């Protein structure tokens, strides 16, 4: 079949037959068309059968390439170094086994021969070369003394091809194998061909939109044959046209090569069948605020793209926009792309940015993440969500759903641990979870003792005792009130020299849930009985002052809780500070007793001071007779008798009585006592106070035992004769 295909491909002689044959077998032999093309060169040229002319050679039977070392006058092709093989070359040659052949066809040749190797290998057979229907050479290639094969052109000189038309040729082996290295041809002389290929009458390039329909048309001169290549193929007439329809997008280059043995000419035309432009905008359909994403677009078959909406201002065949922190909203991304043919495509994507979902799970009102409570306890686990479309519970909330919900727990015992978890999702698929663990622990307890007692206790200052405490189910304890510093869950603390006061030693212990237990012991440390010292004017008294008394009471006390003042004169009464002073003024005559009584829980003590307030020293002196008769005693009338009194001050008193006669003479007399008299006999003068007419004056200078002095007012009496006289 392959051979028949090769035969059918001859354009000069078998075009119609081959065409008919191909029409019949077109469907079944489509794959062989390619093979046929490979083995059906139109014109055989010079070259090795191994490579340069292999496409023009058809193998028939057992044919293979073999590496053969030969020594002859050939040369390797320039691609292999061009070495002359006079000293031997190794190259691939075509070995035709006995009974097999290689064949092909040619046209427009002037001469034709082949290179076959003479060899000393006894397996070499006879080669027979045929061309244009006749044997042009045959010979047994075995040479007994030929140690190294050597190729010769056979026939030599080359066989003159009798026709410029197509001929077939073949090389067959018989009686052994035949090694063939090359075919050698020379062509007849002719002008080079020309060809002009157009699409829709244009030399192109031409841009069309797919599906495109256009017409290829070509003309040639001096062409023996034309062959299409590129986007089309096959042998073509040397001048014709061809409609091409429904061409998909792509760049199509149509090449037409027209050849003759003198050469070839080619022309190409390019048709750009442009696919409709496409553009794809990629942006997430939804996102969660604050949304950060990149919206992109890609296009194909476009020459330009322009963005709008959120892409406004952007262009390019591809592009992107990075969004950062977008709030809730809808965002459109639009791109319009246009290709060279003017076709456009647009794409728009909308991204809806949803608010981030949130879920708030509270267990017993707490957000957790760990909630510790003291059991047994009844509580609820509740959750609420926002911006969510669905919520699903897990763990202890497995099976629960809904945007909000709750689960009630009752009498959960200590030692229980529950996990509650809820996950909510918004339309964008963003999720929010909240998990709370509930740990139910036992209630704590604490016992505080002082000297092993729960109290209350009473001590006397300075006191010493030991505070101890123990707890259960507590993780920490803290000291309260008068117990300070860090404390463990159990311990003790020795206290000494505790001064008076009421002390409360408390320890508060707490379990993991924060539940506290507190215990305390009250210790009363009483002070010694108070010590009271009350002084007046800085002394303990008593003191004496002259009316109006003015003095300062000063008192101090120790250990006193309160002090009360009392006095006989009510000038200092009531509650007073435990230490202080107070002035007293305006104390009247009398004995003033001031008592300070201070108390504390241990007793009451008092101190008293006395102040004697006396009247100021004073006195009087008076004559018994205000009027006396001069030397009255001589008339039987009395002489003067002076009397006086002394008051105030402090007895005993001393009175110095001064008597001044009308003449100015002063006579003094000493008297004593609070009441005294100076009679004529005491004065030693029976005419005392009557010896001169006129006004007598008497006064007394008084002195008390404290040295106070006082001069009395003076008094007078008159001594006259009281004469009788006649009146006119």
């Amino acid at each position, binding site marked *: 079949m392959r051979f028949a295909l090769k035969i059918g491909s001859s354009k000069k002689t078998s075009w119609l037959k081959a065409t008919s044959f191909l029409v019949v077998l077109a469907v079944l032999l489509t794959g062989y068309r390619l093979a046929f093309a490979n083995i059906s060169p139109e014109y055989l040229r010079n070259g090795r059968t191994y490579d340069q002319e292999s496409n023009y050679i058809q193998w028939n039977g057992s044919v293979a390439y073999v590496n053969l070392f030969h020594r002859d006058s050939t040369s390797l092709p320039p691609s292999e170094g061009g070495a002359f093989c006079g000293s031997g070359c190794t190259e691939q040659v075509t070995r035709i086994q006995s009974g097999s052949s290689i064949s092909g066809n040619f046209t427009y040749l002037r001469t034709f021969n082949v290179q076959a190797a003479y060899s000393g290998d006894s397996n070499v057979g006879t080669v027979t070369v045929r061309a244009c229907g006749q044997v042009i050479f045959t010979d047994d290639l075995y040479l007994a003394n030929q140690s190294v094969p050597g190729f010769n052109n056979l026939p030599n000189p080359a066989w003159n091809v009798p026709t410029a038309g197509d001929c077939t040729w073949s090389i067959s082996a018989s009686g052994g194998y035949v090694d063939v290295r090359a075919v050698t041809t020379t062509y007849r002389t002719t002008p080079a061909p020309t060809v002009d290929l157009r699409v829709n009458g244009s030399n192109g390039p031409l841009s069309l939109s797919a599906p495109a329909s256009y017409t290829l048309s070509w003309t040639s001169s001096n062409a023996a044959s034309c062959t299409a290549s590129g986007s089309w193929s096959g042998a073509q007439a040397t001048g014709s046209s061809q409609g091409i329809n429904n061409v998909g997008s792509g760049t199509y280059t149509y090449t037409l090569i027209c050849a003759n043995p003198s050469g070839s000419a080619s022309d190409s035309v390019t048709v750009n069948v442009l696919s409709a432009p496409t553009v794809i905008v990629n942006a997430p359909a939804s996102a969660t605020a604050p949304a950060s994403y990149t919206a992109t677009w890609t296009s194909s078959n476009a020459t330009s793209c322009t963005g709008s909406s959120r892409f406004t201002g952007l262009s390019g065949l591809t592009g992107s926009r990075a969004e950062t922190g977008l709030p809730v909203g809808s965002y459109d991304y639009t791109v319009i792309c246009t290709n060279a043919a003017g076709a456009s495509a647009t794409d728009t994507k909308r991204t809806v940015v949803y608010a981030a979902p949130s879920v708030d799970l509270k267990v017993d009102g707490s957000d957790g993440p760990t909630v510790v409570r003291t059991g047994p306890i009844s509580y609820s686990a509740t959750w609420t969500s926002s911006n969510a479309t669905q919520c699903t519970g897990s763990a202890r909330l497995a099976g629960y759903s809904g945007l909000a919900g709750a689960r009630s727990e009752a009498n959960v015992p200590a030692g229980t641990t529950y996990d509650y978890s809820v996950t909510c999702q918004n339309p964008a698929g963003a999720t929010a979870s909240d998990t709370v663990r509930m740990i139910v622990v036992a209630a704590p307890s604490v016992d505080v003792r002082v000297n092993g007692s729960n109290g209350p206790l009473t001590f006397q200052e300075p006191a010493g005792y030991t505070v101890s405490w123990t707890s259960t189910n507590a993780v920490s304890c803290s000291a309260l009130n008068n117990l300070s510093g860090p404390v463990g869950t159990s311990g003790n603390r020795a206290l000494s020299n505790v001064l008076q006061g009421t002390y409360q030693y408390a320890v508060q212990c707490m379990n993991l849930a924060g539940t506290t237990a507190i215990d305390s012991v009250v210790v009363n440390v009483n002070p010694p009985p108070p010590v009271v010292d009350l002084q007046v004017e800085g002394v303990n008294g008593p003191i004496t002052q002259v009316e109006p008394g003015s003095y300062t009471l000063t008192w101090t006390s120790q250990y006193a809780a309160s002090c009360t003042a009392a006095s006989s004169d009510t000038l200092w009464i009531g509650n007073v500070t435990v230490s202080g002073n107070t002035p007293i003024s305006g104390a009247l005559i009398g004995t003033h007793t001031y008592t300070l009584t201070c108390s504390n829980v241990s007793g009451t003590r008092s101190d008293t001071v006395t102040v004697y307030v006396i009247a100021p020293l004073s006195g009087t002196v008076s004559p018994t007779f205000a009027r006396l008769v001069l030397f009255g005693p001589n008339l039987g009338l009395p002489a003067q008798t002076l009397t006086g009194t002394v008051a105030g001050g402090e007895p005993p008193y001393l009175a110095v009585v001064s008597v001044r006669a009308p003449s100015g003479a002063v006579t003094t007399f000493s008297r004593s006592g609070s009441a005294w008299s100076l009679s004529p006999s005491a004065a030693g003068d029976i005419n005392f106070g009557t010896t001169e007419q006129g006004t007598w004056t008497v006064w007394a200078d008084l002195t008390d035992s404290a040295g106070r002095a006082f001069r009395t007012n003076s008094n007078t009496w008159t001594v*006259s004769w009281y004469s009788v006289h*006649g009146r*006119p």
Partner: protein
Amino acid sequence: MIFERKGQTALWGFLVMLVLIAIASGLVDIYRLYAARNWAYTAAQEAALAGASRGRDWGALMTGDEMGLDGATAKAEAERVLIAEMASRGISGYTMDVRVLPVAGGGSIAGFPPRPVRLGDSLGAWSSNEPAVGVYLEVPVDWLMLDMLNVQIKTVHVFASAGVAQ
């Protein structure tokens, strides 16, 4: 001096005629009147001094009062002296009026003496600034010429007082 004054116009006319008629006898009557008056005054003065002296109230003075007169004593002593004098002269028909101002500051007695007599600087109302005894004495007088004229009533009126100096 105590002068008798009778202001009646008729009497004075009569006396002028008497003077003209009996100048000599008149001079005698004047003398006799003058002598009687002096004696009466002296007696009254003595009585007043006696009353004042003996009437001094020492007791009151000792008790602190100012020197005054014991009114009763003073009056009695003054009257005793007058009575004694009148008796020694054999005079009867006299009239005496003893008044006492006992207090230290004296005083005044209106309408005393009963007839106007010269009392110091004033007449008719006896007053004193000290304790005093006032004696009014009316003594009958024998006339020579007036008897012949049958004038029956003839007296002299005197007033004397004594005080206690303070």
